[in-house]
């Protein structure tokens, strides 16, 4: 009897061990121990193992998920993949939050973040003061709600600069005047290469490309209450200046009229492939892409500089990125979720593999890949004076109207003053009905 019991116990032990050895830590909708009682729900829209089309990224994420799962056997994360359309995905999460049906953590586009503040919960206790101070200024500001509490982790960002071909542009222009001069010369010299291309069509790329010109002058789109102010006082002058500058770019021949058909920065990869442009505003993520679309020699020709501004002493860039918002009130889940985000998505290795930018100074300063790479060092400098779009409900309308105004000026449908007034009227009409 005793012998039988020992054999049975041994069998159970072996069987349990075998099952444990075969535990799948990452399945199609779960990260972690399937038997864990603590279940964290997560909605993820970008950069997940399941949606990554790059092998390197997918491999990293799977290994990092597994490592977190092994270290946190009491937790499992149930994953829901969000819509690929950012706007639709954000709308869905906010609708879920309104009715209390949101996930414990959800990935949020950084510029929507302030609209989620009422639903997000404090994670102040799970970040040290040193960690909080390590984030770039605009990032920390975004992660902090109106009560001064950290309610999200902005783990990844991007930044914009001027891409220029150094064989055609020996020295990057620092001001608008220099840009027009250099670009006009290039356009006039060779009709197969345009001096400067930029997005001026109906897309967020257009707005986000010109806002750094506005921010650098000290312009504000909205006041601290979210009321639009871009057509008032000096702000109006700044905007008129920008519209005049864009009009002159095309009128002088520095830029082709086709700029009104560009909606995103990504479209300039085609210009790189076709060798048809000498300069354009681009994102940090594009440099690595060039090596996939043109020869190494050709990709090496592209350098990056700060965006040219109205005056040489001005500087600004635009930054966005993705944030993990914490919706759960359960302290245990909060702690486990923060550990997950830190270990997987704030890990310097992830940024090296993915090509995205970290949001903390220490990663640029301490991690070899960032410390030794001149472009990464440049991006860090850009980030220090970068701005984020205002996360007030009226911003999408402002952005849309700016896109229309820019194209109306370039195509000659309206003067800069008329275009700005039209944009202002439409924005205020919308604002007053909110």
């Amino acid at each position, binding site marked *: 009897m005793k012998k039988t019991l020992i054999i049975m116990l041994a069998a159970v032990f072996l069987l349990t061990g075998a099952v444990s050895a075969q535990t799948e830590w990452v399945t199609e909708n779960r990260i972690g121990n399937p038997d864990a009682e603590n279940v964290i729900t997560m909605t993820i829209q970008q950069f997940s193992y399941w949606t990554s089309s790059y092998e390197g990224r997918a491999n990293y994420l799977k290994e990092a998920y597994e490592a977190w799962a092994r270290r946190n056997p009491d937790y499992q994360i149930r994953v829901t993949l969000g819509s690929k359309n950012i706007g639709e995905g954000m709308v869905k999460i906010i609708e879920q939050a309104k009715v209390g049906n949101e996930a414990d953590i959800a990935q949020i586009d950084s510029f929507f973040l302030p609209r989620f503040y009422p639903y997000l919960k404090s994670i102040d206790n799970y970040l040290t003061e040193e960690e909080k101070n390590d984030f770039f200024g605009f990032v920390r500001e975004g992660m902090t709600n109106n009560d001064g509490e950290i309610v999200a982790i902005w783990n990844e960002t991007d930044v914009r600069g001027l891409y220029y071909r150094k064989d055609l542009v020996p020295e990057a222009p620092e001001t608008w005047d220099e840009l027009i001069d250099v670009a006009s010369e290039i356009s006039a010299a060779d009709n197969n290469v345009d001096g400067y291309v930029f997005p001026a069509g109906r897309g967020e790329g257009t707005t986000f490309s010109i806002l750094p010109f506005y921010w650098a002058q000290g312009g504000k789109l909205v006041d601290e209450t979210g009321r639009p102010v871009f057509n008032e006082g000096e702000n109006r002058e700044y905007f008129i200046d920008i519209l005049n500058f864009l009009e002159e770019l095309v009128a002088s021949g520095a830029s082709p009229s086709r700029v009104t058909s560009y909606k995103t920065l990504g479209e300039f990869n085609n210009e790189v492939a076709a060798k048809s442009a000498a300069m354009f505003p681009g994102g940090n993520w594009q440099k690595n892409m060039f090596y996939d679309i043109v020869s190494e020699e050709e990709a090496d020709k592209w350098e990056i500089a700060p965006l040219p501004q109205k005056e040489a002493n001005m500087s600004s860039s635009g930054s966005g990125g993705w944030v993990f918002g914490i919706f759960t009130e359960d302290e245990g889940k909060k702690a486990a979720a923060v550990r997950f985000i830190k270990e997987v998505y704030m890990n310097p290795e992830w940024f090296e593999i993915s090509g995205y930018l970290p949001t903390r100074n220490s990663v640029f300063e301490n991690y070899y890949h960032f410390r030794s790479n001149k472009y990464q060092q440049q991006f860090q400098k850009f980030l220090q004076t970068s701005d984020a779009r205002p996360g007030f409900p009226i911003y999408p309308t402002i952005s*849309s109207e700016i896109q229309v105004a820019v194209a109306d000026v370039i195509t000659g449908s309206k003067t800069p003053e008329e275009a700005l007034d039209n944009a202002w009227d439409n924005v205020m009409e919308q604002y007053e009905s909110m």
Partner: protein
Amino acid sequence: MLLSRKNKRFAFFLPMVVWLLVFLLYPTLDLIRLSFKDIGFVTEGTSGYTFENYTQLFQHSDFYTILRVTIIFVFFSVLFQMFLGFVLARVMVAGEDRGLVGTVVVRTSVLIGWVIPGVVVGIIWNLFLTESTTGILNYWLNAWGIGRLPFLSDPTWALISVTVANIWRGTAASMIMQYAGLKVLPNELHEAAVIDGASFIQETLYVTIPAMKPVLYTNLVLITIKTVNTFDSIIALTGGGPGRSTEVLALSAYLRVFRQFDLGSGAAIAVILFVINLVMTLIYSRIIDFEEEKGRAA
């Protein structure tokens, strides 16, 4: 308990009735309700009902620009889809009558435009029309000495481009409908016209088209509704730009809801679209009834 004969009939219809109520009537009524609400995805709005979404739209000068763009886009799309669809169907039938090989291949090729999703249609046409050196059409125009044309960056050209892309996309469906109409025409009509010495054009104008009127009207209704509701190919091709030069009503509704998160205003535009579709359908249906009555009287 056994159902009576009448109840059995009703039971067969029940799933369809439930389907229509849940997935058609309810969303339509909810859309109308939302169009009278000050409601956004990211703003709380007020709890009462208001006409403001409509009054703001009608007072807005840009609304009339969008309406004008929609009318031009729909008119030329429908006109050319009808015309080209008829020509293709006629050629197809003529080819089959003569036993030409390859008519099935031609029919299938034309259908490609119909089965491809709108967004992909927009991307394909974007590759074709783009003004950079990678643009296919501009490459050939340049090679032929005509020079590059601003297909997507000039407001007028951009509207022509999105309309042509939509004609390409919708001609196939129009062709199939008219092809079916031609195939069921009694052969005696054709023979009588030939015996009477009618030319091809005379036969088409005075025999074929009058005999096909019900099919043509139905086709007209369907492609008009489809075109009025089109925005997917435009969003991929121009995004509604430059400026608002290619922003049609359906696209405007989408942009207001999913870019500006203004549900009330987007719903108001959708209701206007619904009314336009409804009115046109009623007009066409009255015409069909009138033609049928005229035919019976004759």
